[in-house]
């Protein structure tokens, strides 16, 4: 059973079909006609539209699994995927949780505990207190702080609720705000802080463990193109990584995976600074949004290895079998309005033509007539491309994004094209602050396109006004023509 929705649910269900594992989907009221519910062999209603009453409701999700006699649950990403109580409840019910053991989730879910384990395993972590901080920060601690710092929730993750403080006055205010937000978002008000790594690159390592201490490293992903701490474009291999640094990161991830006796898929996230140092940030104990780039360069179906492992089958691969080839990039298509501060939008999909062709993979749950709601994530599709080397991949991604046509809701497609067209991105040097100052000036090609759009709209309006319409009150007729028409009707 897949305890998720949207593109990731469809993606997992596709592998279920390939393996000929019977599948069950769960759906909320809003999702009863959604693609994931339609794709599965069975679909079980789990409640009302708000996630808290459906996809986040442990009892209902578990009951759906029991009722449908599922033997394993794949939680996808988000929702209950990192929830220790859920994983525990699944195992207590005698089902298999496709992911790490609950003890691992408890540890990775506590960012300070994860930091401690990482340091004990020999991984470099950012300097900072190992305890959660309160509204009153001791003066002795304040003296040692190097600003700016980022304040993060102990139970947070995924880039949510992060706040920046440039000095001690800001720190007090931001800690208070962050504590309130952490309590509301994660049910835990504990926060901590770490120095901000300026000009950083975000590089993460994909690992796979059998739960007995055997760990495979499946390459890295660079996710430096972020907006408001949310990833937009991810790729593998990381363009900013030297071979020696790559080796160090793989070793660090391997050691941490072994120390945790990690089971299933996990991602170890690192920040790299300009001076050749790297720091552990957190472990993501689940499949990631950006996992397809790893699948493209390694040729390994990550969901398939998860499912086989849960099914009790031994690893099909040894570390030597994992060879990366070429370059892959993922771009996230989000329903949002670039004209209105990139705020998420809702609406109906009135037209859809997804991209295709050589080296292009689309992971989406879109269909014509679908309603994009504000109840869930605004990520609606992912475009993943592969080619033998990075510059070809970038050209291919541009081509695919231009092909992708979605009518009814505005998206970030144009913004994504602007980013991959920019010099810094093409050179591979863009860091995590790149989008904060990103400026795009329209090219001649874009100006011509806009002119063509103006022309098309005028031609269509002209056609509408000059073509005779059905016989009814017609504002196209003047008053006396209308009168003549009316007399004819008598």
């Amino acid at each position: 059973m897949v305890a998720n929705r949207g593109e990731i649910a469809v993606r997992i269900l596709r592998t279920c079909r390939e393996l000929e594992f019977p599948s069950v989907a769960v759906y909320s009221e809003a999702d009863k006609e959604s693609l994931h519910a339609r794709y599965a062999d069975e679909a079980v209603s789990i409640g009302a539209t708000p996630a808290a009453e459906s996809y986040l409701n442990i009892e209902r999700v578990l009951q759906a699994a029991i009722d449908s006699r599922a033997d394993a649950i794949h939680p996808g990403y988000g929702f209950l995927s990192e929830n220790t109580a859920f994983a525990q409840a699944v195992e207590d019910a005698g089902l298999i949780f496709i992911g790490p053991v609950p003890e691992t989730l408890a540890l990775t879910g506590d960012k300070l505990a994860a930091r401690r384990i990482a340091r004990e395993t020999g991984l470099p972590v950012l300097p900072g207190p190992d305890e959660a901080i309160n509204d009153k920060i001791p003066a002795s601690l304040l003296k040692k702080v190097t600003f700016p710092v980022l304040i993060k929730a102990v139970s947070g993750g995924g880039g949510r609720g992060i706040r920046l403080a440039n000095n001690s006055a800001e720190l007090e205010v931001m800690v208070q705000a962050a504590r309130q937000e952490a309590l509301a978002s994660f049910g835990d008000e504990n926060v901590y802080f770490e120095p901000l790594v300026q000009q950083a690159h975000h590089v993460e390592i994909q690992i796979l463990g059998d739960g007995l201490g055997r760990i495979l490293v499946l390459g890295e992903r660079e996710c430096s193109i972020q907006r408001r701490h949310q990833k937009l474009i991810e790729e593998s291999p990381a363009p900013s990584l030297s071979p020696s640094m790559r080796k160090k990161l793989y070793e660090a991830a391997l050691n941490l995976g072994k120390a945790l006796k990690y089971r299933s898929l996990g991602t170890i996230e690192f920040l790299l600074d300009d001076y050749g140092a790297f720091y552990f940030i957190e472990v993501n104990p689940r499949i990631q949004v950006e996992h397809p780039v790893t699948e493209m360069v390694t040729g390994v179906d990550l969901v398939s290895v998860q499912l086989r492992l849960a099914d009790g089958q031994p690893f099909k691969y040894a570390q030597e079998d994992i060879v990366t080839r070429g370059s892959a990039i993922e771009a996230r298509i989000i329903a949002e309005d670039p004209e209105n501060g990139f705020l998420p939008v809702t609406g109906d999909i009135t037209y859809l033509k997804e991209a295709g062709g050589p080296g292009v993979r689309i992971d989406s749950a879109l269909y014509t007539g679908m309603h994009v709601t504000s109840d869930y994530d605004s990520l609606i599709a992912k475009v993943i491309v592969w080619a033998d080397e990075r510059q070809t991949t970038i050209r291919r991604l541009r081509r695919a994004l231009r092909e992708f046509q979605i009518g009814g809701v505005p998206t970030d497609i144009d913004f994504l094209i602007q980013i991959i067209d920019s010099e810094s991105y093409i050179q591979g040097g863009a860091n995590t602050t790149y989008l904060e100052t990103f400026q795009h000036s329209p090219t001649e090609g874009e100006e011509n396109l806009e002119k063509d759009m103006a022309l098309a709209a005028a031609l269509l309006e002209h056609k509408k006004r000059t073509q005779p319409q059905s016989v009814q009150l017609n504002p196209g007729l003047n008053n006396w023509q209308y009168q003549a028409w009316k007399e004819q009707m008598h």
Partner: protein
Amino acid sequence: MTLYYVSIGTNEYQVEISTIQTKINGESIQAALVELGERGMYVLKKGPWKREMLVQPQENNQYSINANGKYVVVKVEKSNSKFRRKNSNAAGEIKAPISGIVVRVNVKEGDRVAEGDVVIVLESMKMQMLLQSPVSGIVKSVHVNLGLQLSKGDLIVKIE
């Protein structure tokens, strides 16, 4: 010849269309828009060159257009933005052009109307007159009802 003022964001284009030619910002071009069988899909042809676009009508003479990864909302009007600004104060009022009886009321308070929509029908001297909205907007107030006798200059509808 018909002149259209087309705005995309802050940019405005003037498009002249007649049976013999099309001009954009004064520049003469050979252009045609061909509708494809697929709903909303059009091909803009300029001589031998062509470009495919998804064009979907929205309310208030607006169209959303997708092409080549770009998504824009385009507004097409028969008067330019300077003219519209100048007339915006008085433009939202419809007054009786002649005295007559109200034989039809097409709107009520809060309705959305587009420029050119028929708002009221007046009957005068056995003739009917259609009063159209001069602007697009929301009906703020309706000052008449069916059968009412109006004098020239009486306020009928306010639109914002």
